[in-house]
């Protein structure tokens, strides 16, 4: 079976009659005296989506995006240009533009290629072709019928099926020559329920670096409809969320978006190199309660946030960010690692060849504790229990972060009470994790639907955590 490198060479280089020798020539011309690093990033990506609405598959879309980005780095400076034509003249033109950021001088010499060997973090396949078009349509139609028969109050079902096949090839002035073949699939189901003129919505989905048969195993896709319908019906009965600072229990899995916002972004190397993060200069200090260990792990098999290599060819790793409450490490790409005098951590990512690399998260999660989830609920006199979220945002300088609950319950005297309407939770990243008082033994990762935005670039990520109790978090409801 061909490996990632041979597939990338065949798909990207061969049609343009490019070879690693020709690329070495282009790279060599970028290596002027003041240049610390340069790379060429080739990408060929195929994307397909199908969507159902009002019980028919109305739309399908197929997209091809191909191109090459050229990056030249000198200290804190980056020159960048790209072309959506993968041919030598366009590559050379982009290279000339990118290198314009540094002064003229003699060209340096390139070290021998260090070829990054293949990995088995996820299968080498094209998920667009993994099942027939008829089967794709059938999944969507079935999930629609299934959701509607679950409850007569379901008046609207939207479902989508998305598959992406992304092949990248990167050569860099440090000798790295690497390639990756990245499948990614996702399915979403959202419903609207109506009862006595009141409308509510619910949605659920899943995915990963796999093929579309992921959804077919045991008709797994129907469980997304179950969850979407359950949430919508639950919300029909929801009461106003409370307003104010209180104890908050977060469920396992997707609520780990808390970690992504509260500490994740603030631990990205670029903000810390610039000193603009609330966590800048705090390595070795306590930033979370004892017992809290947070990692960013790009190596998990088949996960949405996983990568075999990052977009600079660095192998991904399991990086301990916070260990037993103490800040241990930032997440780095090559440039920020070099400027901060540390090693890259395999977190250099870019949305596409037309975007700059930044330090980004992969799968960010907190390790399990010892408590049973029911023990944690039993420990709370008054508060809320939030099990599902819609997304979040952070100001990494002040550390203030938000995330919005889409399924939550009141907790009174150690027991779950009524469901409450969606509400935004707000906290301060610098101390939110120091207020964690109980951690469950039920670590779970999300279902594979997360997308993280930074400086206008979106990348797929994962989050996870065990059930946790935070003694003080502000809940933005309207109730008293």
């Amino acid at each position, binding site marked *: 079976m061909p490996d990632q490198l041979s597939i990338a060479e065949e798909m990207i280089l061969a049609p343009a009659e490019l070879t690693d020798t020709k690329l070495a020539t282009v790279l060599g011309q970028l290596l002027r005296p003041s240049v610390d690093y340069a790379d060429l990033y080739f990408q060929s990506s195929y994307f397909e989506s199908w969507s159902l609405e009002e019980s028919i598959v109305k739309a399908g879309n197929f*997209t091809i995006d191909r191109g090459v980005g050229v990056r030249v780095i000198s200290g804190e400076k980056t020159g960048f240009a790209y072309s959506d034509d993968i041919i030598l003249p366009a590559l050379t033109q982009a290279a000339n533009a990118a290198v314009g950021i540094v002064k003229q001088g003699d060209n340096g010499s390139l070290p021998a290629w260090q070829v990054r060997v293949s990995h088995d973090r996820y299968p080498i396949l094209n998920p667009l072709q993994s099942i027939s078009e008829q089967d794709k349509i059938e999944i969507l139609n079935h999930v629609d019928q299934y959701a509607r028969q679950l409850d007569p109050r379901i008046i609207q079902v939207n479902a989508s099926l998305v598959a992406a096949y992304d092949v990248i090839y990167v050569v860099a002035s440090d000798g790295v020559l690497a390639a990756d073949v990245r499948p990614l699939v996702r399915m979403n189901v959202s419903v609207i329920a109506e009862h006595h003129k009141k409308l509510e919505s619910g949605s659920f989905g899943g995915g990963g670096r796999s093929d579309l048969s992921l959804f077919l195993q045991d008709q797994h896709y129907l469980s997304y409809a179950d969850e979407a319908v359950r949430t919508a019906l639950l919300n029909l009965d929801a009461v106003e969320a409370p307003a*104010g600072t209180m104890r908050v229990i977060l469920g396992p899995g997707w609520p780990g978006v808390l970690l992504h916002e509260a500490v994740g972004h603030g631990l990205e190397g670029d903000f810390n190199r610039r000193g*603009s993060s609330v966590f800048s200069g705090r390595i070795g200090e306590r930033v979370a309660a004892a017992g809290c260990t947070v990692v960013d792990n790009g190596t998990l098999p088949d996960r949405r946030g996983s990568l075999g290599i990052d977009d600079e060819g660095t192998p991904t790793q399991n990086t301990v960010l916070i260990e037993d409450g103490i800040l241990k490490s930032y997440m780095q790409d090559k440039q920020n690692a070099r400027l901060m005098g540390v090693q890259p951590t395999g977190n250099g990512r870019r949305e596409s060849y037309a975007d700059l690399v930044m330090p980004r998260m992969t799968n960010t999660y907190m390790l399990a504790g010892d408590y049973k989830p029911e023990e944690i609920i039993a420990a709370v006199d008054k508060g809320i229990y939030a099990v599902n979220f819609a997304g979040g945002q952070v100001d990494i300088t*002040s550390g203030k972060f938000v*995330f919005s609950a889409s399924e939550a319950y009141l907790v009174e005297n150690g027991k779950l009470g009524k469901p409450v309407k969606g509400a*935004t939770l707000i906290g301060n990243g610098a101390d939110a994790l120091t207020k964690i008082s109980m951690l469950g033994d039920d670590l779970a990762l999300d279902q594979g639907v997360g997308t993280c935005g930074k400086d206008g670039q979106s990348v797929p990520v994962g989050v996870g955590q065990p059930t946790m109790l935070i003694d003080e978090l502000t809940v933005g409801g309207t109730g008293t």
Partner: protein
Amino acid sequence: MTVEISEHAATDTTAHQELQRITTQVLDEAVRQGATATEVGCSLETGYNVNVRMGEVEVLEYNRDKGVAITVYFDHCTGSASTSDTSAAAVSAAVTAACNIARYTSTDPYAGLADKERLAFGYDALDLDLCHPWQLTPAAAIEQAQACEQYGFAFDPRIKNSDGCSLSTHSAYRVYANSHGFVGAYPTTRHSISCVLVAEDGSGMQRDYAYSSARTADDLFSLQYIGEEAAARAVKRLQAKRVPTCKVPVIFAADVARGLLGSFFSAISGGAIYRRASFLLDSVGEVIFPAHINFTENPHLPRGSGSAPFDGDGVKTVQRDWVKDGVVQSYVLSSYSARKLGLQTTGNAGGVRNIKVNTSDKDLNQLIKDMGEGLLIAELMGQGVNMVTGDYSRGASGFWVSQGQVQYPVEEITIAGNLKQMFANIVTIGNDVDTRGNIHTGSILLDGMTIAGE
């Protein structure tokens, strides 16, 4: 800096001809493959962006993006495809891919091109004045960004750090064509400068920004204004406190008021209405705002950020009242959503353009005086807006107001309510209109929101 700026997309006539050729190829190819109707959008955008931080260049980035997006109809079955590779072979393959998809999608009687008589034939008689390429070298752009950041540092000694000052200039040429024989194309430019600064004192760090964006460089705010505004905004946030949970009036400052009214336009969009995914179902003809509120769209505003002669369906754009004396006049409709609802398109495929909100003659200070005690909201965080129910809960920061005066900065709180109630509770719209986005509104004073804090 030795690099020449590549040709501006807006004025590169060779590229324009190439894009026109591609649209013709797509339309011909689709007919050959059996499509009964076809539409195609084709664009080229060029430009660059410089980012300066702490006085030094951090990024010089050249952009050149092209793409073709194709939709084909086989009677009432739809397929679409897009490609960044505009070679004849790739475009042909994309048409094939779209046609292949249409073999599997279901018959949707409402799918298809816009009605021919609604298309913007003769659109080129309009001069919207949208194209003003900026003959600025990257070296000069870097100097401007450095100067802007320096104004910020000079403004206050508490400005200790920077997340950078950016200048970007882009120009684009877009063609839309369909098999009714409509071909529309026009060039546009957009230039922007933004500055992000970090203020620091014993209480910690705060970051804020200022920006300007315009069709012509002449309409940009001055470098001094942008740098000093970013600095002033960051410094004003230092020593922010929390406030107790309470129910008070609030003012949405003009730049966040835009988002509040944006939620209104999302809720009356045809797509949300026919999906029944809106808290404003059946709202046409209903009183949603107080009687003094009027919203008007002018899609032909010269140099307007949202101006366009035709919409995403090729339909002629027109001036229109959306809210008159507090009453909703129409849903925001594309050809498709209009057919679904048994109505006529409003020429809004792609959304509304240049909304003018009528204001009072009061400035922000007067609004603060009128409010007496409450919260002036300067920034909102998160996505906590439920378009189906109108439930609204978002993170906020801003300033506490009492006795009609700003007292201190506030952070780590939320504001919550329901949009329908919030729209009805609007008291006054200030005359401090922010025209940088698509909705031109002043600050908005409204009653009775829940603040969650200490």
